[in-house]
């Protein structure tokens, strides 16, 4: 009986095998004819995103310039953000997650600093491309030349000594860390998939400083965004600097969401820590309240808990934000100076939490 079954299986395999092979080869060949993998250009200028001189970042018409209500901190860098959509296509609205972008979308983020003479000096330009070949997002970095005329494809990261002005116009000398392409991936990968981080509804849902219309409504009116519901149904992230309209807690949570939660989330690069800092997180343990660090080692500075309510001085979270030393500093990447204003905010937030009973 057993032998009969085995024989049938083998015969079936003999017939089905070649058929399957034929089909898979055919599919592979047609795919090859349709497209090839996206190849990043050598120079930023080759894309034609900006008019000359390139370092003024004056966009050609197809670029959509945008801002985030609460941005990621990168050494007090000035960031310019643009989206390039394929002609006639639009972004699909999503209420919580990152928007759904059409194939061939390019997201551009330019990093500059203010030098001691208060001039805007370009450092790097990061690109995220949604490759139509395999529907996957790809990353590339461009490093600006000293002459500030163009930026060149650069995968290995760089250390750029700079003297910059912070938000109070105080001079800071540091070595700016341009990430390498794997650094980019670390923050942008969640559950094995590389995705954009910033362009979520809640972080785009505001009216920019010199404008009168909500950014998302503007996009919808221009036909760049489809599926936008009534704006009062769209979630909104607090502006971390706006103490008039938002509480310290709201601002702190918004800051942590944008600066930490791309890694500190299940499936993110810091999944192993069990510390999850998304804006929507409500579990006190996951948020770090009286939670012991798991694998921080000496990075925890000898402190016992991520957050001790009412006691920022004994909270690992504040300690690591207030450091620029490798192995201690958080975030681990793309920050070489301490974000003083954020340390103040997080410190205030922790200190105003009611102390736990014991």
């Amino acid at each position, binding site marked *: 009986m057993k032998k009969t079954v085995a024989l049938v299986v083998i015969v079936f395999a003999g017939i089905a095998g070649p058929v399957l092979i034929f089909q898979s080869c055919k599919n592979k060949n047609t795919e090859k004819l349709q497209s090839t993998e996206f190849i990043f250009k050598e120079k930023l200028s080759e894309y034609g995103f900006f008019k000359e001189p390139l370092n003024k970042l004056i966009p050609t018409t197809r670029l959509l310039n945008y801002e985030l209500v609460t941005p990621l901190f990168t050494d007090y860098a000035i960031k310019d953000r643009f989206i390039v959509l394929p002609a006639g296509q639009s972004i699909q609205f999503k209420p919580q997650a990152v928007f759904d972008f059409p194939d061939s979308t390019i997201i551009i983020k330019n990093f500059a600093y203010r030098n001691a003479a208060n001039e805007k000096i370009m450092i790097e330009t990061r690109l995220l491309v949604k490759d139509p070949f395999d529907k996957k997002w790809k990353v590339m970095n461009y490093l600006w030349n000293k002459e500030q005329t163009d930026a060149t494809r650069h995968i290995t990261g760089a250390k750029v000594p700079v003297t910059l002005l912070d938000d109070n116009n105080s001079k800071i000398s540091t070595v700016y860390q341009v990430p390498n392409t794997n650094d980019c991936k670390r923050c942008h990968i969640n559950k094995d998939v590389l995705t954009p981080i910033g362009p979520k509804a809640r972080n785009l849902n505001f009216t920019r400083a010199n404008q009168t219309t909500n950014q998302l409504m503007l996009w919808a009116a221009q036909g760049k965004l489809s599926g936008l519901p009534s704006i009062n149904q769209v979630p909104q992230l607090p502006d971390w600097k706006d103490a008039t309209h938002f509480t310290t807690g709201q601002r702190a949570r918004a800051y942590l969401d944008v600066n930490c939660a791309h890694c500190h989330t299940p499936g993110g690069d810091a999944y192993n820590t069990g510390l999850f800092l998304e804006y929507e997180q409500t579990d006190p343990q996951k948020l770090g309240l009286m939670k*012991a660090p798991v694998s921080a080692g000496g990075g925890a500075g000898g402190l016992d808990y991520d957050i001790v309510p009412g006691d920022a001085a004994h909270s690992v979270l504040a300690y690591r934000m207030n450091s620029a030393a490798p192995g201690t500093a958080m975030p681990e990447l793309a920050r070489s100076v301490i974000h003083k204003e954020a340390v103040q905010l997080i410190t205030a937030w922790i200190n105003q939490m009611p102390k736990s009973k014991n």
Partner: protein
Amino acid sequence: MISLLRNSVPAFLFIIGLNACNDKVAVVNNDGYKQSLTFSPGDESKIVEALLSLKDSSSVELKQGTYHFDNLSLAQLKHILLKGEGHDKTILDFSAQTQGGEGIRVTDVKGFTIKDLQLQNSKGDLIKINKCEDVVISGLHAVWQKVADSANGGYAIYPVLCKNVLVENSYAEGASDAGIYIGQSTGAVVKGCRAYRNVAGCEIENTSNAEVYDNEFYGNTAGFLVFDLPGLSQRGGHVKAYNNYLHDNNEKNFAKAGSFGTSSGVGNAAPGNGIIVLAASNIEIYNNRIINNNSCAIAIASGLATDDKALEKINDAYFPFPKNVRIHDNIMQMADSFPAATYAHHIGKLLVGIEQKLNAQDASRKNKRIPFILYDGISTNIITKGTQSNPDSICITQPGDNIFVNGDMLNIADQRKWKPNTVITPFECR
């Protein structure tokens, strides 16, 4: 027979399919990788660039000599080999690290092998392997040359959130947390390794289905730990440790984090511990030589021993009471006194206190040492309101004298109620 055939048929088709569709026959080198790259000292910037542009199925060989890096990384790849010419010949030094958490970071690689080289002196961990599958670490030495310094990085060899990890014939020294640390992984083998002068020689944490054998862990604060911590991605357990040689683990605890009494973590390891099982279940410890770890040969503790909030943290991924712990056929010896560092450590002081209390309670002990095996005695009776003497199936087969103490740790704060006792009968395997 039938099930065997069912499994093998798809694999059979797959092999034919691959052969038929490859238009070019891939050149496969001796190691089975499609591309081979070879570098020498002085090529550091080329190596950094090569690792960033690596293709699937690549081997990278680093010829003999010392290399200096800030940090290195591999991400989103399949089938990668990084190898040197021997741990005493190919040295990767990370003293110059200025950013990031580790010397080498490997993320999302399926099929990663690193072998035959030495990593040294990073600011953070030496090598962190995050979210990878089929990891082989072989003949790797990972060391900090500064002795017992809390400024050393936390982990020397650190796979975390991985599936199927093998660490073999490797060596870790100087880690301010654990030398070989496998965290939140499924399927792990540590064999033929040595770990010296780390806080923990080797630690298996929230990792299931692990076997640790033929290793030598010595000169650490504690030799070998099996820990489950709350609030993490998965529960550990199903760990076997056998044929290991754990000796002279009496170093001071130089962990920075936790040295002030954190609720969990390696700061709790008292100097002089051979093996500690904390909140992990389904553990078997046998045929080990556990010699001259002078505070405690084997400790079994619940999460409540170090964290009074442990009960609130029970969920699918955490259960604070160790269950089904089997200990048998180990050779255990201990010297005449605690190591000096034990008296200065918060848990160490408790161990000293247990020894003193036992001898004060029973003059016939004639001032013997603390017994080899310490159980904290904090059992599921707390949640079931039960009264069984061994509800969690702790089972010990270790003939001889002065083998076991139930530390009655729940009552240790109240000298009148506190009664550590050495009655082993309820805990003997049946």
